[in-house]
Structure formats: C-alpha cells, structure tokens
C-alpha cells in the first residue's frame, strides 16, 4: 500500500501529519521491594536461572555507546542456553556489537528494534542475514511503543554505571559513568523483568532508575570502556566550507526573529551543527540574548553555553562527552530527562514540542525536503533517525545543514533512498551553495529576500547546481527483500529498506 509520501509499505502506512490521539499509559507491572538480596556475582550462572524462552524480547540501552560491554556479555550467555528467535530491542547498536552478527546467523536473534544501527550489525541486516524485518524507530517512538505495550519487553538488561544492592541506578557515578540514562527509563518501568548489570556497587541516593523497578542486580568486572563512551564526532569543524555554512545558518536564525530572549535550541554533535552552536554563542553574548534551554544529546560546547549564561537550562537525554557527565553532577540547571519526556507524542509537554530551532544533518534531502539519515546512497543501513524525525516535527524551525556536494555525492537528490524524516516537518536546508526554504514558508522567503543578502534559492536550483558538478549519477533499482522498516514517531511506516546486492 502506498503511504502519503508515495512509498509502498507494509503495515500501517504514514498518512501525513495527523492530529494526535492521545493515550494514557497503564503501569503494567508491580513494583519491587527494596531488598538487598537482589545481588548476584556471576553473570553466567545468573543467566542460567532466568526463565528464557524462544521468541522473547530482550532490551538494552546505548548510553555506553561504542564502549558498551553489556549487550555482548549478556547475549553470549543467553545464546549458551540454546533459545532461538529472540527480539533485541536496543536503543542503538554500534560497531562494538559485532559479536551479535554470529547470533543473527545462528538464529538466536531473528528480530531487531532500534533507533540507530551502525557497523557490522547494520551490514548483516542490509545483507539479509536477519530472518525477520528490523524496525528502525525514532527515539521518541521507542519509548511510546514500550509504554503502550506495542513492544513488550520480557527482560531489560540495564547497563548501570552505579547501582545500590537494592537496585537504585544512576549514570552519574562509577568508572563507566555516562551521565544520563534517558533511553533506559521506559524499559525500567515497563519491562516484565529488569536486570541491572553493574561494575560499581555503591549506595545511590538520587537514582534515575529506582529500586522499585529492578528485580536483579548482577555485578560484573567491567560494563564498558570509558574511551568508547564518549563520541568521536564531537569536534567543531575546521573546514572553511563548513564554517561558512554555520555562519549563514546563524544569520538566517537571527533573521527569522525567533532568536530572542527565551529561545530554545537543539543541535546534534556533527561538526557543522557544533559550529552553528559556536556562532549562536557569540551572537547571544554580543547582543545579550538569553535562551530558555538547549536539549538533546549534550556536548561540552552546550555545557559551555550554559555556564556562560546563554541558556538558563539544559535538558539532557544523553551525554556525548565527559564534560557533560561532570556538568550534570554539579549544575542544578543541567537536567536529566527520559526519552519519553524528550519526544513521546502522547506527552503534551514533551521537550521537542517546545523547540524553536533544531539543527540537523542529512545524508540525502530530496526536492520535497524529505530527509534520509538511515541509509547511504547505496541503500546500506548506516544510521537511523535517533531524534531526527522527533525534533524536526517539534521544532518551529528544523534546519538541515550540509555541504551541497561531498565526495561526488550531492546531498540534494530527486528522491531520497530512505525516508527518515518527512519533508513536511523540515523547514530549511543551508548549504555552501545556497539556502532553500520549504515553499510553505512563502512569507518568510519574501521577508528574507527583502531584508538580508542570504542566498535564498529553490531546492531545485541547488539540485541543478549539484548535478552540474557531479554529473548525473547512475540509478540502480533495488528489488531485494524488505529487511527493515523506517517507522515514524506516530508508529506509521515511512519507508522500507531492501536487501542490498553483495555480488560485486
């Protein structure tokens, strides 16, 4: 069935932006007592005591990012039990999770639900090794689907940087401290059984996940590698082309009139996005503008902006850098938030709905402003929405920043390979060779043309400029099996991802 964006999809097709029918969540499990006998000291023997069955759903969070040891350790022991056809519901999967590939091949794991997948597991899915279809959700919808019981988690394994014997968990302490545990909160409250896996048993006075959620605490040697916990991509770009894009973006933001006292802002950790933050930082200090909050994954740059008084508060769902982990311990205006508070569509006060600006990247953006951050232009899975579609929907101005052409690939294409974020929620594309604004903002286009020197053009013009540089790319039509679905924040299906040809 064709959805509102013209893509043939199975299941519930995306119908365009619809009014949200709010639902109330039920608390689906009984709360646990504060017992101290929850602690186990051997993961292998503990997992043998779990009532594992075929087709169960096991969940994991990704706050330890590419330094996570827990998913590999747990799944190696689970596989020994001989269970098959498990679903892994992980908030993200990174290159370090390569050992899952052999579990996919031997059918221990046959379904994966995640918000972002990169590395060998992504390749295995693209190559058709996963028996069932992988579901790629937004960060917000992952929480929504868990809380509404659409994703029913049998056992949640929560990597716990610090945990008390009763099961009070925080991300703010311990040798693998990662700050926030925002993506694990829904799992903790709604999974049938919750297992904290920790390398730091200690009294926890202010838990993010309270003991009443936790059934078992397992002590292991190490839950992660601190070097892999911080992201490798959080440097401000030094590329003059990227810096120029950032400058135009800041100028455009100012020209919209929304950059004033009380403004709200989110930016990703990409080099150009961070350069935009730097521009906004300088602009706010110069003109004495004070923003209300910045949100999302928090980098050291945003911490600096908070400390310089550019923002009153930070809402942090995930710390990208150790500076953020430190800041959240000492600064009362640096708040932890759950994925649901961040972006659940049924929470009317969610943070994304309060955003004025979000700065996002794109692998591809098409003439209808649909964005792909899920697959490469060859159709191979290399990411996923994360909060891309959530923030683009919520923010008054969703701004995509990108070089127009990089390594002979144009960011503007006639049709994106995979729709991650619908064009109806994207407002502006800023490139080094011109700025395109979605035609539904005609008044703004006229205003900017009259009052600024910004190079405003139609997106078709950018497309033609790119083709003049690169030549016309050859198209290959992929008719392979559907290996993954791109699911929108309301649960509908935006697009399908097909098996790639690995013959060459």
């Amino acid at each position, binding site marked *: 069935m064709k959805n509102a964006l013209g893509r043939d999809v199975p299941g519930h097709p995306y119908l365009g932006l619809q009014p949200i029918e709010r639902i109330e969540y039920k608390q689906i499990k009984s709360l646990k007592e504060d017992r101290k006998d929850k602690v186990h000291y051997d993961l292998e023997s503990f997992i043998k005591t779990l009532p594992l069955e075929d087709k169960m759903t096991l969940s994991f969070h990704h706050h330890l990012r590419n330094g996570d040891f827990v998913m590999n350790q747990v799944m190696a022991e689970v596989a020994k039990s001989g269970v098959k056809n498990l679903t892994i519901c992980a908030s993200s999967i990174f290159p370090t999770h390569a050992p899952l590939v052999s579990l996919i091949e031997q059918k221990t794991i046959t379904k994966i639900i995640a918000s972002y997948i990169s590395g060998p597991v992504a390749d295995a899915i693209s190559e058709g090794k996963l028996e069932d279809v992988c579901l790629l959700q937004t960060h917000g919808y992952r929480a929504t689907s868990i809380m509404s019981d659409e994703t029913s988690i049998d056992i949640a394994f929560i990597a716990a940087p610090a945990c008390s014997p009763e099961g009070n968990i925080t991300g703010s302490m311990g040798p693998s401290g990662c700050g926030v545990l925002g993506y694990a909160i829904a799992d903790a409250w709604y999974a049938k059984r919750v297992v904290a896996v920790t390398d730091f048993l200690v009294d926890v006075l202010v838990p993010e996940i309270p003991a009443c959620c936790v059934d078992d605490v397992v002590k292991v040697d190490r839950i992660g590698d601190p070097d892999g916990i911080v992201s490798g991509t959080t440097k401000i770009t030094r590329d003059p082309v990227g810096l120029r894009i950032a400058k135009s973006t800041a100028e455009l933001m100012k020209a919209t009139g929304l950059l004033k006292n009380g403004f709200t802002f989110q930016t990703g950790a990409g080099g150009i996005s961070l350069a935009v933050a730097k521009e906004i930082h300088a602009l706010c200090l110069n003109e004495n503008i004070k923003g209300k909050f910045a949100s999302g994954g928090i980098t050291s740059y945003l911490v600096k902006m908070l400390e310089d008084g550019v923002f009153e508060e930070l809402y942090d769902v995930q710390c990208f850098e150790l500076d953020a982990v430190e800041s959240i311990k000492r600064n009362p205006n640096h708040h932890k938030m759950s994925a649901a508070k961040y972006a659940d569509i049924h929470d009317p006060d969610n943070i994304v709905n309060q955003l004025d600006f979000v700065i996002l990247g794109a692998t591809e953006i098409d003439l209808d402003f649909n964005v792909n951050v899920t697959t490469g*232009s*060859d159709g191979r899975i290399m990411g996923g929405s994360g909060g891309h579609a959530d923030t683009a929907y919520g923010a008054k101005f969703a701004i995509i920043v990108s070089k127009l*052409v*990089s*390594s*002979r*690939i144009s960011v503007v294409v006639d049709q994106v390979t995979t729709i991650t974020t619908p064009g109806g929620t994207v407002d502006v594309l800023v490139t080094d060779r011109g700025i395109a604004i979605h035609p539904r903002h005609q008044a703004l286009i006229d205003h900017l043309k009259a009052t600024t020197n910004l190079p405003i053009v139609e997106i078709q013009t950018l497309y033609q400029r790119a083709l003049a*540089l*690169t*030549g016309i*790319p*050859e198209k*290959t039509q992929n008719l392979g099996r559907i290996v993954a679905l791109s699911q929108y924040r309301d649960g509908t299906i935006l697009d399908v991802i097909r098996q790639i040809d690995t013959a*060459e």
Partner: protein
Amino acid sequence: MKIEKPAQAGTLESNDIYVQILPNPKEEIEIRLKSVVMLQFGKQIRQVAMQTLNEKGITSCILNLEDKGALDYTIKARIESAVERSLC
C-alpha cells in the same frame, strides 16, 4: 605513445583521486578503478580517464585509479600530472 616509466599523482583524501601510471607489457590501455562512488559514477570515471589518456596521446599503459569521490576536473588534472611526470 607508450608509458615507459611509472609515475603517480593525487592523494587518498576525500574528494581526491590517487593515480598510478605504469608500463603495460601487453601494449594496450588498461584502467583499473576502485571508487567510493563506483555504483553511481564508475562508468563516467572510466570515460573521463580514457578521454584524458587519448588527449595526451597515450596508447599503452596500466592506469590504477583509487577514487575518493573526485569531480571530473580533478580526475583529469591528476591523470595529466601522472602522465607528465612519467614522460619527463
């Protein structure tokens, strides 16, 4: 004109192409291409390479190309440099 002496040009940086030109005992032009945009632009890169060799009057060589997404004018310039270096 035959290539008698090996030469190289370019780098493996993004948006560039590394070119190596070598004598070919079979006395013909052989182009070996690796590219990050093989699917989209493989044919076009071979075409530009062949055209550049023709313009330089080369009739025999092995041309190794390792492309990191270079645009046509970069490909042309790098191949011309390699040829000039080989001939001097």
